[in-house]
């Protein structure tokens, strides 16, 4: 295939497919073992400074927020983030100093809630480095290539734009149609966290509702930590195996964290906590406010359980469940 154009973005998380196969053979667990551990241990064991990180879910939906708070608490540094519709997750990771480089599909925004004051400030003041751009399908298909064990995936997006020019993709002549075609390189994040509705102790995981990119991401990531609302008996998974999205051999650790997606939405269980996100959007308008937030909600609490108590505990979680089940109306300070 003739290369017609080359994007100028750096190639992040790419490995030769044979090198990756060998890595998997040497490092991934192929025997069903109990992988349960504490969040603190999982983060310290599997997240290393300098890693390429991709979070599961989609910004405000089914994100392993508990892991994000723990990375901030452990002062992880120089992480490169795959900004795959990274919203609240990205905002916290960037403004806390954990993430210093980012490949952007969608970042620095909170969707309907507006832009992210804290992480935008970091970019505009040159305090973090934007490495390149890509589209959401581009990111998804980078993970898909990785999940298939292939070096790249062809696609018909990004062509003709500066999103392409700032990406690490290529434009080639398709040998079949003769038309220009985009190739996105495979992407193997060093580490990913996926928050699942339930999984067993081995990491066989089930997700209810939209899977977004997580089917591919779970297979693409070199190290995968499953955080889950509930660790269930092996029989629960085996009774409905077609519901399993991630098999045990992809998972390196299993961490039970009820409400672990808070303040993001966990479909069917609890809606996003718009009051808490609103508080963040307001306080993060200044560096001092941002620091105060992290002091209060991360450093001054021992762990995620204490954080949940601090944000309103059981009563708050019941209200978010009622909103999720449409028994109560959402109110959002940012909409007032």
């Amino acid at each position, binding site marked *: 295939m003739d290369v017609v154009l080359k994007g100028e973005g750096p190639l992040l998380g790419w490995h030769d497919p044979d090198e990756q196969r060998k890595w998997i053979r040497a490092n991934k667990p192929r025997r069903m073992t109990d992988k349960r551990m504490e969040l603190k241990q999982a983060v310290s064991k599997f997240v290393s400074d300098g890693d390429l990180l991709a979070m599961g879910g*989609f*910004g*405000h*939906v089914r994100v392993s927020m508990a892991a994000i708070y723990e990375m901030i608490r452990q002062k992880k540094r120089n992480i490169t983030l795959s900004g795959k*519709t990274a919203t609240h997750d990205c905002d916290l990771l960037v403004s806390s100093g954990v993430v210093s480089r980012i490949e*952007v*599909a*969608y*970042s*620095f925004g909170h*969707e*309907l*809630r507006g*832009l992210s004051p804290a992480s*935008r400030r970091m*970019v*505009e003041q*040159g305090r973090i480095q*934007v490495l390149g*751009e*890509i*589209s*959401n*399908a*581009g990111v*998804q*298909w980078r993970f*898909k290539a990785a999940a298939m064990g292939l070096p790249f995936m062809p696609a*018909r*997006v*990004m*062509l*003709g*734009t*500066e*999103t392409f020019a*700032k990406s690490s993709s290529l*434009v080639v002549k398709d040998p079949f149609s003769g038309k*220009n075609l985009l190739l996105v390189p495979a992407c193997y994040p060093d580490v990913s966290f996926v928050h699942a509705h339930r999984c067993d102790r081995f990491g066989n995981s089930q997700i*209810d*509702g*939209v*899977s*977004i*990119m*997580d*089917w*591919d991401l779970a297979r693409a990531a070199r190290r995968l930590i499953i955080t889950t609302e509930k660790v269930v008996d092996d029989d629960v998974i085996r009774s409905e195996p077609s519901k399993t999205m991630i098999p045990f051999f992809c998972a390196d650790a299993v961490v039970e964290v009820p409400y672990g997606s808070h303040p993001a*939405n966990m*479909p*069917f269980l609890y*809606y*996003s906590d718009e009051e808490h996100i609103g508080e963040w959007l307001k306080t993060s308008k200044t560096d001092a406010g941002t620091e105060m937030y992290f002091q209060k909600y991360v450093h001054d609490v021992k762990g995620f359980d204490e954080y949940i108590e601090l944000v309103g505990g059981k009563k708050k979680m019941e209200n978010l469940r009622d909103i*999720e089940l*449409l028994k109560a*109306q*959402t*109110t*959002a300070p940012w*909409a007032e």
Partner: protein
Amino acid sequence: MQKQAFSTVEQMASATSKLIEDGATVLTGSGLPMIAMALAIRTRTPNVTIIFEAGGIAPQIPVLPISVSDSRTFYKAVMATSLDSVMSTAQQGYVDYGMLGAAQIDMYGNINTTVIGPYDRPKARLPGSGGGNDVGSLCWKTIIIMQQDRKRFVKKLDFLTTPGYLNGPGARERAGLPEGTGPYRVVTQLGVLGFDESTKRMMLLAVHPGVSVEDVKANTDFDLIVPHEVDMTSLPTAEEIRLLHKEIDPSHFVIR
């Protein structure tokens, strides 16, 4: 411009809801595009299928979603799938319309949602493509909903995030984008714009009630094609306004 008894957001939602034919598939984000499609389904075109990029297909949306993947985007849906599945479907040709917002647009309907100012040290860093580039690349017809003024309707974009007609007729196909796709309508607080068939340049089609052709020109920095006859959109009906406030966006996230 005359003073209006309804908000421009309501006018834009009403005008957008009339652009889609019944039975069409629409890939939409949250916010105003979503509101317009919810309105279309509740009024003129009950058989429009809404698709969300994160995997929700044909939801019966109870209240306005805040995120493009939140649980409202697949409430009583026929399928809750993946971004891969939705974007692949669009790449196959199943999706008739894509709905987008934008910070800047040029005369060929190319849009910017990435940066204002220089890329390396932006005056304002915006979220980037997200699914925007994919929607604008893969759907048969793209509808863009945005505010119109001289800083937004520009001669040259600060960054070309999502393809319109690129630099003119045939450019999309030469770049390798699917044939016969591209921007279809642009809906703003001033009116509805389309694209001239032969030049692929933006053309005024209709103004909202109380808005003049001069108002539209004064808020466009590039040369806009203005035909002899320009239509006028209709005012939102009382029923449309009731639906927007009471059913579609009861928490007033967008309709204020």
